[in-house]
């Protein structure tokens, strides 16, 4: 989309009466410096986010690098059919959804519980120290964090040393199919729970203290106060984050999984994103990889719009 068409305001068709049109023109002219300020950003989005949309057409073409996207012949839904009938696809979809769901079920409550516990502590410096320590890993890259984890779970890592000292057999956890998903979920929780708690702590701080007073007068004990005041108080933010994570169910976390993935665990750990990378960039099978990526994008969009509608119906604050 070009910058100019962006600037054209809605309803500026020939039908609008002269007077209004002049007014609009004056308003546009008055705003010319604003347009100049926004223009670089719009150009950026045009080139790097909207222009690639054109490349999606190769999912429907027999793409030949020499002839380019434009001159490659159309083949309809051939690549999609191949994708849906391939042996690989059901596994990919299954792995992606299972890993996401595990993260959601086991990972989602952790920051909430952590925030509730932190909220019981009076000492500022103690809270502050615990928070500072626990959200530090959020700023580490997955490469570095996985490196720290490998120090424990690697073939000569600490856990194996403990096992062999205790007389058990060593396990190579990095190539173990049964442990892969557990490792993914546990490490994801360890890296992000402290960071995830910040937003809940902010919400907790926003709860009106009069509500607690009222609950106390009505004879509510500690746990009842938490149940009837604290949790409803942070419900909007819980609902929002839950819906968002549900909407991102096809994003099982490329960066993390890529760090732990190896051919020995492809059956349980290969997700849509890692497959698209291998197929598209490593093997240059652009059409199929684009089709798989497009499938993921469309489902993702449907999910996020659905999530937003649900939040709005629930009467909570939605994303847009």
């Amino acid at each position, binding site marked *: 989309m070009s910058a100019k068409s962006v600037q054209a305001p*809605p309803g500026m068709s020939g039908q609008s009466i002269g007077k209004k049109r002049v007014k609009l023109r004056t308003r546009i002219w008055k705003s010319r410096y604003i347009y100049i300020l926004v223009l670089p950003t719009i150009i950026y989005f045009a080139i790097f986010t909207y222009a*690639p949309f054109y*490349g999606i057409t190769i999912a429907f073409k027999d793409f030949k690098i020499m002839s380019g996207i434009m001159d490659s012949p159309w083949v309809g839904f051939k690549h999609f059919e191949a994708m849906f009938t391939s042996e690989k696809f059901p596994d990919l979809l299954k792995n992606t959804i299972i890993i996401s769901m595990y993260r959601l079920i086991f990972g989602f409550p952790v920051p909430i519980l952590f925030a509730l516990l932190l909220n019981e502590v009076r000492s*500022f410096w103690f809270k*502050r120290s615990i928070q500072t320590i626990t959200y530090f890993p959020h*700023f580490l890259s997955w490469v570095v964090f*996985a490196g720290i984890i490998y120090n424990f779970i690697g073939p000569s890592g600490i856990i194996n040393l403990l096992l062999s000292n205790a007389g058990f057999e060593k396990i190579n956890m990095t190539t173990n199919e049964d442990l892969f998903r557990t490792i993914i979920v546990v490490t994801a929780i360890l890296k992000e729970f402290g960071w995830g708690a910040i*937003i809940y702590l902010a919400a907790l701080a926003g709860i009106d203290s009069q509500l607690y007073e009222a609950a106390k007068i009505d004879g509510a004990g500690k746990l009842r106060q938490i149940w009837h005041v604290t949790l409803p108080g942070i419900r909007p933010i819980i609902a929002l984050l839950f819906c968002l994570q549900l909407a991102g169910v096809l994003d099982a976390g490329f960066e993390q999984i*890529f760090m732990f993935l190896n051919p020995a665990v492809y059956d349980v750990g290969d997700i849509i994103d890692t497959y698209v990378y291998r197929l598209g960039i490593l093997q240059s099978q652009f059409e199929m990889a684009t089709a798989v990526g497009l499938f993921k994008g469309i489902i*993702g969009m449907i999910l996020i719009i659905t999530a937003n509608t649900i939040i709005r119906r629930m009467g909570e604050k939605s994303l847009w």
Partner: protein
Amino acid sequence: MVEQTASAEQLNEKDVLTGTNKLDANPWWAQAIIYIILIGSGLVTLLPMVNVWAISLSEAHEVFKDPMMLWPKSFTLESYKYIFNTQVLLKSFGITVFVTVVGTFLNLLFTSTGAYGLSKTHVPGHKIMLWLIIIPMLFGAGLIPMYILLKNLGLLNNIWVLILPKLVASFNLILMRNFFWSIPESLEESARIDGASEFRVLWSVILPLSKPVIATVGLFYAVGHWNDYFSGLFFINDNSKWPLQMVLRSIVIDFNMLNMGTQNTNTLNDASKLVVQPENIKAATIIFAIVPILIVYPFLQKYFVKGIMLGSVKG
């Protein structure tokens, strides 16, 4: 995300962390359990890093005997000497420093001008422009179309591929836009009456008032560049142009490349007598990558906590 209430601005970390006096005190045993769990979660996060640090400073045979240490045994700097002789690592460090500094500057330039423009709701076409920014958050073209575009633009294997495709992040732009939007119009008016241009208003009125949000967004971008792994993996296959995280991966996880650019290639295979072993070098490399973040962490912390609250939807 799109809407922001005034109260979000007024929150600060201290309020958030001390806003507890509303609940009754716990009995001592409940309090004890809470403290134990919290200290436990702190230790679970902290100890693995301390362990890596201790390993990086210990001699190999000590690590071989017992890697479960929280303090270096037989202190040595050999593994650090080793990685500072690894040309590939230092070069990638330079690339990443460049990308972080130049990239973050350009990020802030583009994001703040765009955000300022979009905070003017009276401008015709405002809604369309805003949607143009929001749509990429919902739906993207995907990896392969991006790859082909960058290939056509001649950006593959070019250091600018680490910067240009990530010039503006929709989320950050909207965060900043909402902040600008909440600044009272009257402040700008007085500058305009004095004859200030739109650029002047942005530079002399808006930006000085927006330090917290600029710091937050700038730090988001900077950490993003520092930890960026995708761009190198997808778009750069010449390993002399790899950013830091790519080289880190090949050292820490694949354990390749260690011998590149160093003299002592045979030392790694011999057994427990040696001063430096792969485990030491991996540990030292991890610490090497953590230290810069550790240095900026106090600043990060000051702004991030506030920043995430600015961006949060208030309950």
